[in-house]
């Protein structure tokens, strides 16, 4: 049977591995390549690497760095951050990236997802969706490039699926990096069947918390950042992993 996945999510900024709290307060962790090597040795189900500033700063991708990442991964590797066109996607696939995550570009239109899916198949494109919480505890779709509240969350998700996304990564920004636990109730706003695999991310803080998430029918995979990077009460850097594989 198909095993649900546990996926470390690594954040890159200026070619360094960093870790944020609520996509803010970036802290330097180390050399991303070393950490990727460690995760490879631990036989992680998959790995997601996101560059947090490429889209914001409208920068070109560092293909040499990404190529090095890919050559250390004997498991599936997803890259996201700053991808604007099909040529970039093609280059990434040729370097050994399996899946591309598109987030900011979906706020313009869904053409990029559509084109990647048409050319490379829907299994090669993940739609990233960031959700934040207002003062009144209301969820809203968070566009962290323009910082504007725009579309309705469910409309946006449906549009991503309709245009060919093969997987969905929902980040709960208000809880990201906080190590305060992931609550599967947050998914209650999804009151329909999502036809593609769903990865959730934001605040997972224990093995039990991972197990709770994986028991949730809506969830196919959990993304984990801080919990696999930090250890102990003072958040010392120590790379760890736990697998759901039998």
């Amino acid at each position, binding site marked *: 049977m198909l095993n649900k996945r546990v996926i470390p999510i690594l954040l890159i900024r200026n070619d360094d591995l960093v870790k944020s709290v609520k996509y803010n307060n970036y802290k330097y962790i180390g050399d991303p390549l070393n950490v990727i090597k460690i995760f490879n040795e631990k036989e992680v*189900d998959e790995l997601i690497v996101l560059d947090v500033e490429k889209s914001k700063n409208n920068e070109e991708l560092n293909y040499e760095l990404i190529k090095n990442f890919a050559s250390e991964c*004997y498991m599936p590797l997803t890259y996201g951050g700053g991808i604007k066109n099909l040529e970039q996607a093609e280059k990434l696939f040729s370097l050994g990236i*399996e*899946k591309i995550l598109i987030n900011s570009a979906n706020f313009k239109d869904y053409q990029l997802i559509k084109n990647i899916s048409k050319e490379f198949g829907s299994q*090669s494109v993940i739609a990233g969706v960031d959700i934040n919480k207002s003062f009144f505890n209301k969820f809203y779709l968070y566009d962290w490039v323009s910082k504007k509240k725009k579309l309705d969350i469910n409309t946006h998700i449906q549009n991503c699926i309709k245009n060919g996304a093969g997987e969905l990564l929902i980040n709960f920004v208000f809880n990201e990096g906080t190590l305060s636990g992931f609550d599967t109730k947050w998914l209650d706003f999804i009151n329909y069947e999502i036809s593609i*695999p769903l990865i959730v991310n934001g605040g997972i803080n224990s093995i039990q918390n991972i197990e709770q998430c994986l028991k949730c029918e809506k969830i196919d995979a959990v993304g984990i950042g801080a919990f696999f990077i930090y250890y102990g009460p003072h958040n010392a850097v120590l790379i760890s992993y736990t697998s759901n594989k039998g």
Partner: protein
Amino acid sequence: MSINLIKCGLGNVGSVKNALNKIGYHPNIVERPDQFNYNFKKIILPGVGSFDSFIASLKKSGLFDEIIYLVKRQQFSILGICVGLQSFFETSEEGAETGLSLIKGRVVRINSIKQIKVPHMGWNDLIIKKNKKLLFDLPKKNFYFAHSYYAKCLFEEDILAYTIYDENIPAVINSNNVYGVQFHPEKSFLQGQKILKNFIELC
């Protein structure tokens, strides 16, 4: 010792090359029909992308006819990965192009009547029906899958292993010198590398 690795427009040749390097092989990258190494009669055909765009790029580069010739007339063994495997069949529900037609059958979409999620994505187990050389001595039996379509073989005996995802999905196929895996051995750690090694050394 240089196995022929086909780089065709959308193929994930980078990952396969990495995995081959890891097991000590440095592939001969083939982008045109005149680049095949005849001293090493083995071909790996990785595939990413939709059926039609993959077949179209094989045709555009002239590799489509050359592969058929080498496999049928020159006894080259071929290993197709994912869409590479699917390209061995005659037709696909994903498109209108005709495949390489090296194996009888057709490619169909994973049945979504039971609201099962498509793509089939992640680590799944092999159920081995016929233990042939390609599957020799695997350290583990779970492999990474990422696909929305799969090959329905006309002949049951062409299926070496299944995986279960709502229905039985042929995961490893073989007919004479034609081999295919629906999963990604290049992204399945040591067990995947073992399959590549078995193909190169035993098949």
